[in-house]
């Protein structure tokens, strides 16, 4: 371990500095506040006395992104604005690590979505924002936090944008800790220390002087920083302290409880559905079936059922679906190929069998209907209008029949008709019921500290969802039996 030499003793104990002395001096301009910020982080880490190999300093791009080089901890220097994403991946992979993110105000702009998401999750990162109101490394361009009127190399006559208020923006997410200070404030070290110690998401907005660009061009000084806070109505101090559970551990508590390890537990995965042949199809060549209906009519499920039945009758099958981006409107179609031989090309030029269930389905195949040869059999809901085709028409009261069970069973009724008349494979297949998927043990104990909102919403939802997931294969079987039987 290459932890740095002892510099001073902290208030709690004599903990060696996390700054690697041999890497000094820092590469920052004389008078730049970044040097102080590095020392503040060091103080915060020393107060916790963590082993350096359990600490990760993740830096963003910009001058302050050079900081990680000087820490004798793990260090991750990533792309501009994305430091929070790497830090979150690290925390999710190993929730007991202390993960510190060091970024500038530039990172808060380009990576704003990550900042919001991390605060909403309350993932256990400490975000240190060295906020000097401009992009120093690239020559002093304006950033998301540049005050109105400020002169920078990209706001030559004064900034017209309002600055991002990190406290006001993140507070509604109720993360672990939010505070604003400046590199000159007497309580800065204490606040950084508290941010570092925070279990959930913490962010400290440290106002800083960019001596190379912003401070000179805008006559910002140690003394005027406080006035700027007042003018912008962005006061210093602690803006929020919260007790929501830390996300990386909360995720594990919710998704990786003991019972999940138990094979009979949550049934998050449907049991493997092997489709061993239980019958023998007489089909000798490739047969293609086009099912055309409306979105929401369970077209894909019916097609899967048709293919599964074929496989259980010793055939091979492919299923190629076609649907627009809309969900419960428009057409839904599926092309199924059944064959005793391996299927290469999955396209269906001219189908042998067509099942048309609705007006949407009809509209989808309409252009091709005149091209279908007399050998093609079209099974159509009898309520649909005249069809312009030379193909053999079989009109059936599919919808009326379906309504005896449920209108959405129309595809299954059509499938039953096809199986009964076409002899693709035996319409009645029986097989052992699926392996038992026991209902999970509920109610689960509520993890300590969960907010009322969570208990109110997700507790109920998660229980319901899991129950449905567990039951899905069983329901599918039930449908199959009813349809085919």
């Amino acid at each position, binding site marked *: 371990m290459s932890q740095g030499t002892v510099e001073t003793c902290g208030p709690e104990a004599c903990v060696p500095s996390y700054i690697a002395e041999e890497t000094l001096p820092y590469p920052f301009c004389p008078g730049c506040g970044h040097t102080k910020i590095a020392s503040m982080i060091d103080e915060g880490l020393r107060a916790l006395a963590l082993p350096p190999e359990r600490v990760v300093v993740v830096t963003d791009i910009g001058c302050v992104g050079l900081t990680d080089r000087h820490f004798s901890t793990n260090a991750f220097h990533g792309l501009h604005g994305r430091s929070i994403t790497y830090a979150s991946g690290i925390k999710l992979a*190993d929730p007991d690590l202390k993960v510190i993110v060091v970024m500038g105000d530039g990172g808060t702009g380009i990576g704003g979505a990550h900042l*919001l998401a991390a605060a909403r999750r309350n993932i256990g990162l400490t975000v240190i924002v060295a906020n000097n109101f401009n992009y120093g490394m690239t020559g002093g361009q304006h950033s998301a936090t540049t005050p109105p009127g400020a002169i920078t190399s990209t706001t030559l006559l004064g900034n017209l944008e309002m600055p991002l208020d990190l406290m006001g923006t993140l507070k509604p997410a109720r993360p672990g800790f939010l505070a604003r200070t400046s590199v000159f404030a007497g309580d800065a070290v204490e606040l950084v220390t508290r941010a570092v110690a925070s279990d959930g998401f913490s962010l400290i907005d440290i106002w800083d002087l960019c001596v190379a660009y912003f401070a000179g061009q805008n006559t910002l000084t140690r003394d005027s920083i406080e006035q700027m806070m007042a003018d912008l109505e962005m006061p210093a101090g602690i803006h929020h302290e919260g007790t929501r559970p830390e996300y990386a551990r909360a995720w594990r508590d919710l998704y990786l409880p003991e019972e999940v390890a138990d094979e009979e537990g949550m049934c998050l995965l449907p049991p493997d559905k092997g489709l061993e042949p239980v019958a023998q199809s007489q089909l000798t060549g490739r047969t293609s079936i086009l099912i055309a209906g409306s979105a929401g009519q369970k077209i894909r499920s019916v097609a899967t059922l048709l293919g599964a039945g074929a496989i259980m009758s010793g055939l091979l099958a492919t299923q190629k679906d076609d649907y627009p981006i809309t969900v419960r409107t428009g057409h839904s179609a599926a092309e199924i190929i059944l064959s005793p031989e391996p299927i290469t090309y999955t396209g269906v030029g001219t189908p042998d069998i067509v099942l048309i269930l609705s007006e949407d389905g009809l509209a989808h195949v309409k252009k091709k209907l005149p091209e279908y040869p007399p050998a093609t059999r079209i099974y159509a809901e009898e309520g649909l209008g005249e069809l312009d085709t030379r193909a053999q028409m079989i009109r059936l009261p599919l919808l009326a029949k379906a309504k005896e069970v449920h209108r959405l069973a129309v595809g299954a009724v059509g499938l039953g008709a096809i199986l009964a008349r076409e002899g693709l494979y035996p319409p009645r297949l029986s097989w052992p019921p699926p392996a038992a998927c026991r209902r999970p043990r509920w109610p689960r104990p509520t993890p300590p500290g969960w907010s009322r909102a969570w208990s109110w919403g997700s507790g109920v939802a998660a229980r319901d969802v899991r129950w449905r997931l567990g039951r899905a294969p069983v329901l599918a079987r039930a449908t199959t039996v009813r349809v085919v039987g």
Partner: protein
Amino acid sequence: MIEFLEGNDAVVRAAVEAGCRFFAGYPITPATSILTGMMRALPKVGGVAVQGEDEIASIGLCIGAAMTGKVAMTATSGPGMSLYSENIGLAVMGETPLVIVDVQRQGPATGSATKGADGDIEFLRWGTSGGLPLFVLSPENVRECYTLTREAFVLAERYRTPVVLASQKEVGLTREAVDLQAARDDSPSVFARPLADPEAPYLPHAFHDPADVAPMSPIGGPHLVRYTTSMHDKRALLAKDPALIGEMMEHLARKILAHAEEHALYDLDPQEGADTLLVAYGVTARAAREAVVQVRAAGKKAALLVLKTLFPVPEKAIGEALAGVSRVVVPEMNLGQYVEEVRKLSGDREVVSVAKMNTDLLSPEEIIAQGGLL
């Protein structure tokens, strides 16, 4: 055991069985079922699966987790690949093992979200700044969604590199009878990530020969680990010396290229006396196989090379398949991309591109007609 699975389902199964324990993704048709599949599958094996706030976050989460010891995967479609671009460069630079599945959809930008194409193929190879090589594999069916995902994890972990599985809607969302046990038997064994000696000092990018690959040490483990997006030396510290930078570039390229031939996966179906060679990949290979059957049934001759490894280009396999033919036909579901890779190796042979990107599959008949095969 025969199952009726979609390609995306097979990717999920393969990932879990390859040891993948971290997944992050963002919903996007036609890749969403990999995200939802991993969310169901990973908790069963103690893994973590989360939805990122966007694609940039998703791949960033994966890179962080991968460097903290997790075997990681993400999945998206073309628009998401565009957002992954910069972070793919980071994974190359930081030598991060990561499997990326691109379930391609038709068109640039949002395109036809629910339709297939192979329009990203050259983008997958050249889709990040710097131009360093990476592996791109292309499955033609559900079985290969399994076997090539398993292969992708081996490549990622063995060479510490991002590996792209170039799937597409017509493979990922096509359901097919498949025996995964047979696919499993045909897959490479799980490659356990080599870890650095915990007692010895750790160099994150160590190599003697440029083609060497350094063992990893997870963040949070026995060593202090450094990682950087910037040009670095073997210690992951900023490098400015052109000689050092040159060596590192050679390392990042050679560790892939020196091993390219041993990972060149393809099927060659030669025919004695054939004058024409078809070179196909992905779902179009299925139509090409059918086309060859029809050509031969008609008494004509044609050879077929189906590529599973697209990049690095399997030059030796293509060169051998080209021997003795004077024409090459390359069908693909784009406006003609990989045909240029084949053309580079074809000398003065006639090279015919059969290209289509209108959301329909290329049919065997189109390949025969436009390729002049009969």
